[in-house]
C-alpha cells in the first residue's frame, strides 16, 4: 500500500504544481498594466466624478434636474430601430429598474452624477460605484470572455491596455436594464467598448454602444470625469427607504 500511496502523493503534487502554474499565468498583468508610459499622472486609479453639470450647461444646483428644460428628443439622434424607438416613446420613467433598486444599465451607471473609485490589482481593474453600491470587475489577465457566458446585469468585462488607455470590452448583459432613465431598453446582444484615459486631473471616457436588436448602428458618447482625491465613496443602500417600489 505504501508505494501506491506514494505514487498518488507524487501525482497530486504534480497536479498541484500545474494548477498553481496555470493560476499564476492567468493572473499575470500585462506589461502596460505594470508600467505606465505616461508615469503616475496617467494612472487611472483614483476617485472620479462625472462632470455632468458643467458639460450640459453650467447648472449649479445638482439637486435640480437640468435635463427637463433641455431634453432633446433622443429618438431623433440615437439610431434606434423602429421597435426600440416605439418602446422608448411608450416607456414610463418610473419603470426603470433603478427605481426599484435593481442595477441600472451600464451607461446609466457610468454617467450618473455619483463618484466612482477605480482600483487596480494584478489582472484586474475594479470600479466601485457609489451609486447603488455597484461594483464592476474588469479582467485584464488576457483570458478573454468565457465561452459559456451567463447573462448578467453588468455583463462580462475584459480589458486591455492600449498604451496608457484602458480599453474595456463588455458582453453578456441581460436585457433587463435601461441605458438611460427614460426607456432606452436593450437586448442581451448589447456590446459595449469603453476607453479610459487620464490627462492630469481629468479622466477622459468614451462608451460605444452596439446592439443589433436595438440600434441600427453603433454609436458613441464621450465625457470627462474630474479627479476627487479627497473624496471617499459613501454608502448607498438603496432598499433602505425607497418610496418608489
Amino acid at each position, binding site marked *: 500500500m505504501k508505494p501506491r500511496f506514494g505514487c498518488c502523493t507524487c501525482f497530486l503534487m504534480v497536479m498541484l504544481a500545474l494548477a498553481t502554474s496555470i493560476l499564476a499565468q492567468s493572473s499575470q498583468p500585462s506589461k502596460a498594466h505594470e508600467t505606465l508610459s505616461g508615469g503616475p499622472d496617467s494612472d487611472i486609479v483614483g476617485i472620479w466624478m462625472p462632470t*455632468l*453639470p458643467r*458639460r*450640459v450647461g453650467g447648472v449649479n*444646483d*445638482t*439637486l*435640480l*434636474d*437640468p*435635463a*427637463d*428644460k*433641455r*431634453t*432633446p428628443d*433622443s429618438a431623433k*439622434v*440615437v*439610431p434606434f430601430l423602429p421597435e426600440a424607438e416605439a418602446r422608448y416613446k411608450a416607456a414610463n*420613467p*418610473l419603470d*426603470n429598474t*433603478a*427605481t426599484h*433598486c435593481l442595477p*441600472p444599465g451600464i*451607461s446609466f451607471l457610468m*454617467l*450618473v*452624477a*455619483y463618484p466612482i473609485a477605480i482600483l487596480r490589482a494584478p489582472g484586474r481593474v475594479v470600479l466601485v460605484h*457609489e*451609486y447603488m453600491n455597484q461594483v464592476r470587475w474588469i479582467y485584464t489577465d488576457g483570458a478573454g470572455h468565457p465561452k459559456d457566458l451567463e447573462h448578467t446585469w453588468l455583463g462580462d468585462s475584459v480589458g486591455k491596455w492600449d498604451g496608457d488607455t484602458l480599453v474595456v470590452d463588455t458582453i453578456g448583459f441581460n436585457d433587463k436594464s435601461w*441605458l*438611460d*432613465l*427614460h426607456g*432606452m431598453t436593450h437586448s442581451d446582444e448589447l456590446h459595449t*467598448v469603453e476607453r479610459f484615459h487620464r490627462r492630469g486631473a481629468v479622466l477622459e471616457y468614451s462608451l*460605444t454602444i452596439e446592439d443589433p436588436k436595438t440600434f441600427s*448602428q*453603433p*454609436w*458613441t*458618447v*464621450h*465625457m470627462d470625469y474630474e479627479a476627487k482625491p479627497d*473624496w471617499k*465613496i*459613501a*454608502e*448607498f*443602500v*438603496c432598499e*433602505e*427607504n*425607497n*418610496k*418608489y417600489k
Partner: protein
Amino acid sequence: MKVKEIGLSMFALVCLLAAIPAFGHHGSAEYETEQVVTVEGVVKQFEWTNPHTWLYVTVANDKGEIAEWAGEAGAPGMLARRGWTSHSFKPGDKVKMSGRPAKNGSKQMLISKVQTDGGVLQ
C-alpha cells in the same frame, strides 16, 4: 466596427446625460420643471436615508389650516459633500423649504434649498 462618431456623439451625449440627471435614482419626471414652490413651517421629521433623503414640514396657512409637505432631496453621500448632515434638521426647527412641486398636485416637492436659522442648505 463602424461607429457613428462626431456629430451624433455630441447629441447622443446630451441625450444620455439629459436622461441621467444628477437626481439619479428615479429621475424627476414626477416633478414640475418650470415651477418653484416655497413653504414655511416647522420640521416634523427628517429621514437621512438612501436612496434619497426626505424632509417633512408642517405648514400652517393664514386660516390656521395645517398641511404636511414632503420634500425629497438627494442621497446622503452627495448631500454630505455640500454640508448636509443627519443632524441638519430636528423636529420643531423652523425652515423655509423650496423646490419643484409634484405634477400630481400632492404636497410634495423636489428640494432645491432649505433655509434655516443657521443658513441655507442646497
